[in-house]
Every structure is written in structure tokens, then in C-alpha cells.
């Protein structure tokens, strides 16, 4: 609802202008004035000592038909026939949301096989809508949007989740556009507001500098894409039962056509996201040779090498190793940060790792605030000794 200033109460004290995160309040002629930057965040409501800032309802708000919508639906992305790991993470968070709401969890699978559809049930789905046409094996925006749109209008879920992957981020916006509903991109946390049944969609904004909670109170379904590697999967239950509904397709038109799909994971993608152990280096390494030492350590631990943006910007290691807001989000069992200060943009990409070990010579470095174990020291003393001892132990 829009925010207004009650001019008669405003004293022009300016506390609201200082507090507004969007710089959307100006003082003009000793009165506060809300500019077009206002984002309706409502922060100013509690700041004003005079109670001069208020929220007003819209005239002729549309009636809500929210109760027609029930259940949680996840889009189970598959690549080359195999369900992507993000789909299992969506089943993890989707199960939790469905339980909180007391509703069913379903999954939509396009293409792929009956076997994969069954897997989705073992990972937590109650029901799978399997649109099993081979033409859907490879991703194409137009048929994907049309089919998902039709499923949603037919089954009316209150929440729809998809992975914030290349696929999800390309076609889900079209579906939300067609449904006239909200879509929140790249969420890192999802919760239910029990009172309103609204989905609280939490995501980083402004390059990871700040977190925002987004809601979609007046429209259904509530749609979000979810950042891979942040949500936890359920425990796999091979005995779990559920329903598979096979859906035929008809009248699919497409103005786009995918000719080839080139998989170049071997040359330009490191398998950071599947690694159990990641040894990451930052500017503290001081030179590109430092990464040789980290590679050695990673090898001894059966892991792979990551990096901060500073190290990538220095040209010490290719971009594909970058962890963080503008790099990869990772969630290994062990993350070892060497010479990384711990800027928020780095932390958002690795904070959900099970164990974080930080090596940094500055005891004040913020990386220690997220670390499980920290060593305050020079990495060029710590790591060679560590490597030496690990090698000795191996023999």
C-alpha cells in the first residue's frame, strides 16, 4: 500500500530522510515529501516520532480469490534426462513449506523418464505431473512456458518454485507474466508467515550488500526462483510412495528451436558445486603461484580449488573458480578460506558450507565471524606445514 505524509503532523525534522534506504524522502519547505524512488519498504513508518507517515489503502482493490489456490508445486528441472540437483533442493524446501501450510507437495517434470519421476517422490514429492514427451528433453522456452502455465491454471498451487538456473531464470518470468503474478528472483531463504499464509521470500539485493524480504500478498500463485546449493535436500526414502500423473501434450507451438546443446563442462566449468571439499584463495595469496600450493592441499583432501573475486580480478585464476555473489554458490562439507577477508559478497556464496575453516593473518578479518575453526597466521607458514604433515600421515 502506498506511503503518505500527513502534512499537518510533519515537523520537518528529517529523521525519515536519513533512514530511508532508497533516499526517497526529501524535505521541501520544512515538510517531508515522498519521491518516486519510494519502494514501499515501510521502514519510515516506525521512524517518524510524530506519527506523520502513514500507509493508505488503494481505492477499488481487486477482490482476492486466494483460497482457490492450495499446495506447493516445484518445477523439477532435468538436463540430459537426469533430474538436476537443484530440483532435489527444491523438494527439500518445498516439503518444509508444504508441511507448514498443511498441503501437498507436487513436482512438474518435463521430458525425461518414468524412473526420474519416481525419484522425485523418493526425494519428498507427494505427486508428480510428468509431461513425458521426448520433444521436451531439451529446454526450449516456448513449450516450457506454455505447459507450466497450463499446469498452474489447472491445478492452482499457492506456491510455485523453480531453480534460479539458466533454465529457470529464462522461462519462469514468462509464466509469471502471463499469470499476472509476482516472481522473486534468486531467493536464498523461504519461510511461511503462518498468519497470512504468505510466502516470505528472502534474497540479496544491491550486489549482496543487503537482504530483502519480498512478499506477494494479493496474487496467486506466489512464485520464486531459488538459488542452487543453498537449500538442503530431504533424506532419500526409497520406500516413499506417491502419485505420478502422466500428462500428454497437444497444440504446442514454438517460434524458437534448439538446434544443438553443447556440453563443455570439461574445459570451462570446474565442478565447484559438487565438491565436498573446497580450498579457496584470496588476495592474501599475493601471487598466482600461491594457487599451486592450494591445488596441492586440495588434492590431498580430495577437493577442488575456489577463489575470491579479488584473486580472480588479479588474474591469478580464471573466473570459473570464483565463489560468491557474482560467482558460484557452493555448499561443500568443508570450505577452507585462505587469505580471504570475508566480504559479504564472498560470504553469501559459501556461508552454508557445513564446516568453514579460515586461515588469515588478521585476527579482525570478518571471515572469522562465519568460520567454524580459525587459524590466525601467515598462510605461507600454515599451509606448507599442513601439506607436509598430511603427506606424512598418508605414508
Amino acid at each position, binding site marked *: 500500500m502506498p506511503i503518505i505524509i500527513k502534512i499537518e503532523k510533519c515537523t520537518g525534522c528529517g529523521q525519515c530522510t*536519513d533512514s530511508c534506504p532508497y533516499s526517497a524522502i526529501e524535505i521541501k519547505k520544512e515538510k517531508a515529501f515522498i519521491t*518516486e524512488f519510494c519502494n514501499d519498504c515501510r521502514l519510515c513508518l516506525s521512524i517518524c516520532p510524530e506519527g506523520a507517515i502513514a500507509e493508505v489503502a488503494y481505492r477499488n482493490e481487486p477482490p482476492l480469490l486466494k483460497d482457490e489456490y492450495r499446495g506447493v508445486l516445484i518445477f523439477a528441472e532435468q538436463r540430459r534426462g537426469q533430474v538436476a540437483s537443484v530440483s532435489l533442493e527444491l523438494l527439500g524446501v518445498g516439503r518444509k513449506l508444504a508441511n507448514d501450510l498443511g498441503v501437498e507437495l507436487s513436482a512438474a517434470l518435463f521430458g525425461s523418464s518414468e524412473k526420474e519421476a519416481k525419484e522425485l517422490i523418493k526425494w519428498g514429492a507427494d505427486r508428480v505431473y510428468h509431461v513425458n514427451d521426448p520433444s521436451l528433453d531439451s529446454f526450449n522456452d516456448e513449450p516450457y512456458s506454455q505447459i507450466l502455465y497450463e499446469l498452474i491454471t489447472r491445478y492452482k498451487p499457492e506456491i510455485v518454485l523453480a531453480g534460479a538456473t539458466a533454465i529457470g531464470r529464462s522461462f519462469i*518470468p514468462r509464466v509469471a*507474466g502471463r499469470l499476472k503474478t509476482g*516472481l522473486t528472483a534468486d531467493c536464498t531463504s523461504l519461510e511461511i508467515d503462518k498468519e497470512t499464509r504468505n510466502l516470505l521470500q528472502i534474497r540479496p539485493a*544491491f550486489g549482496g*550488500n543487503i537482504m530483502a524480504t519480498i512478499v506477494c500478498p494479493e496474487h496467486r500463485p506466489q512464485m520464486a526462483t531459488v538459488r542452487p546449493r543453498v537449500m538442503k535436500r530431504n533424506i532419500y526414502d526409497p520406500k516413499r510412495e506417491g502419485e505420478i500423473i502422466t500428462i500428454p501434450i497437444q497444440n504446442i507451438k514454438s517460434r524458437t528451436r534448439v538446434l544443438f546443446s553443447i556440453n563443455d563442462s570439461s574445459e570451462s566449468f570446474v565442478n565447484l558445486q559438487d565438491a565436498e*571439499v573446497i580450498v579457496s584463495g584470496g588476495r592474501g595469496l599475493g601471487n598466482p603461484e600461491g594457487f599451486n600450493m592450494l591445488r596441492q592441499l586440495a588434492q590431498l583432501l580430495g577437493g577442488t580449488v575456489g577463489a575470491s573475486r579479488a584473486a580472480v580480478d588479479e588474474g591469478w585464476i580464471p573466473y570459473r573458480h570464483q565463489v560468491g555473489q557474482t560467482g558460484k554458490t557452493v555448499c561443500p562439507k568443508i570450505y577452507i578460506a585462505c587469505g580471504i577477508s570475508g566480504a559479504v559478497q564472498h560470504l553469501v556464496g559459501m556461508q552454508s558450507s557445513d564446516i568453514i575453516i579460515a586461515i588469515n593473518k588478521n585476527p579482525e578479518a570478518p571471515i572469522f565471524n562465519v568460520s567454524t575453526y580459525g587459524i590466525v597466521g601467515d598462510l605461507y607458514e600454515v599451509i606448507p606445514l599442513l601439506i607436509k604433515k598430511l603427506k606424512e600421515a598418508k605414508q
Partner: protein
Amino acid sequence: MKIVICIKQVPDTSEIKIDPVTNTLIREGVPSIINPYDLHAIEAGLQIKETKGGKVTVITMGPPQAEEALREAISMGVDEAYLISDRAFAGSDTWATSYTLSKAINKLGYDIVICGKQAIDGDTAQVGPEIAEFLDIPHISYVKKIEEIEDSFIRVQRLMDDGYDVVESTIPVLLTVVKELNIPRLPSLRGKMAAKKASIPRLTKDDLDVKEENIGLKGSPTKVKNIFAPQFKGERKILQGDLEEQVNELIQILKDLKCQ
């Protein structure tokens, strides 16, 4: 070929700091720039014009000062620019933004619409595909290479998480572009002169065929409920003793984790 490019003026997020006391963004002194991905969109549009002929139009929806971004685009060589600005558009989320932009694009006419992959303030990457939906044209995301372009057909490479796809589409089409596509040119001297002189028409809600209930805050299904500083939890156990003892403890920890 009529090419329309959507650009957004954004705060340079690499300069943004958080006030640790109030948990709010410090915007003072933060420069406004053209969203970096949109520079690649402009370059792509100019290159298409250079090979196929036609006209390149840039548009932005934003407050009056977003005109600076349009002038910068003119200095790179685009033919014309429109500012879509109205108090009534304020508070638009991606749905309302795409709706409004699609109405403007329709009015201006187009064969190809080009957007950046995402804007660095919100990082949503939703506006491009949503515009295509409202225009009822196909879109191709993350274009990293244009292989071939004819009057009614285009073939491109689309960057994916595990490689890339070769995709064909009919024209009209909307493309969203990634940095790998090209290197944006710098403004020329002549361009800078043109930018100074150019008149930039402004389109308000009365100029566009928009429905009141679909624009601005009111037309936005999503709302920002609150904002807060990122929080992190760690046990922060700093290992003690001399170097040897610390490393021994670390090895023990790794052993316990069965990583060794």
C-alpha cells in the same frame, strides 16, 4: 531492422556501502551508471544496424535524471532515445516495469528488442523475458554470440549452466545478452556532440496505452516487506598454541571429518 534497446540507470553497486548502525544503504556519492550488461546490449544493437541497416532506439524507464544514461547511449552512436517517466510508474516491480516497457516498445515499433541479462541493482534477470511475454514474441536469454541474422530469422548461441545451446528464432524476437557477446565501444567525439544536442522525448502514462491498475506500485504484485543486513553465524573457534600445535589440531579436525 528496427532495434529497441532497454537500458537501466543503476547505482554502481561496487561503490555501495552499508551503514553499520542503521543497516541502510549509503547512497551518497555513489555514482549512477548504465547497467553494465546494457552496454553490451547497446553494442549488439549498433552492430546489427551496421550489417543489416536500420535504426537503433534506446529507452529507459526511470526518474528524470535517467536521461543522463540515454545521453550516454547516444554518445555511443544510437539514433534516438526516449525517457519513460511518470510519478505513476514509481514503485514498479518487474511485472509492472515489463508491462510498461512493453507498451512503450509497441508504440515505438520494433523488429528486435535487446535487454541486458540482468540489472546489477536487483539482479533479477526477469524484465527481458517478461517484456517478450507482454509483446507476445519469443525471447532468447543469455545470448553470447549471434551466428546469423536475416530479415525474419536469427540464430544465436545461448549460454547455459553447463555449456551452450544453438537456438533459432523467428523475428520479431527479444534477446537478453551476456558480457561474452562483445566489447562495448567508447563514446566518439561526434557522438558526444550529438548527445549534448539531442532532444530526448519523454513518454508519460498518458502517452502509453496502459491500464492504471497495471502500473507503478499498484500494478506490482510483489512488495518489499523489509530489508536488513546479511547475517552470518559462525562458531569462531580460533585455534590456539604455536604453529605446530595449531596445524596438528587442524589435522585432527580433518581426520574427524573423515577427510583425510
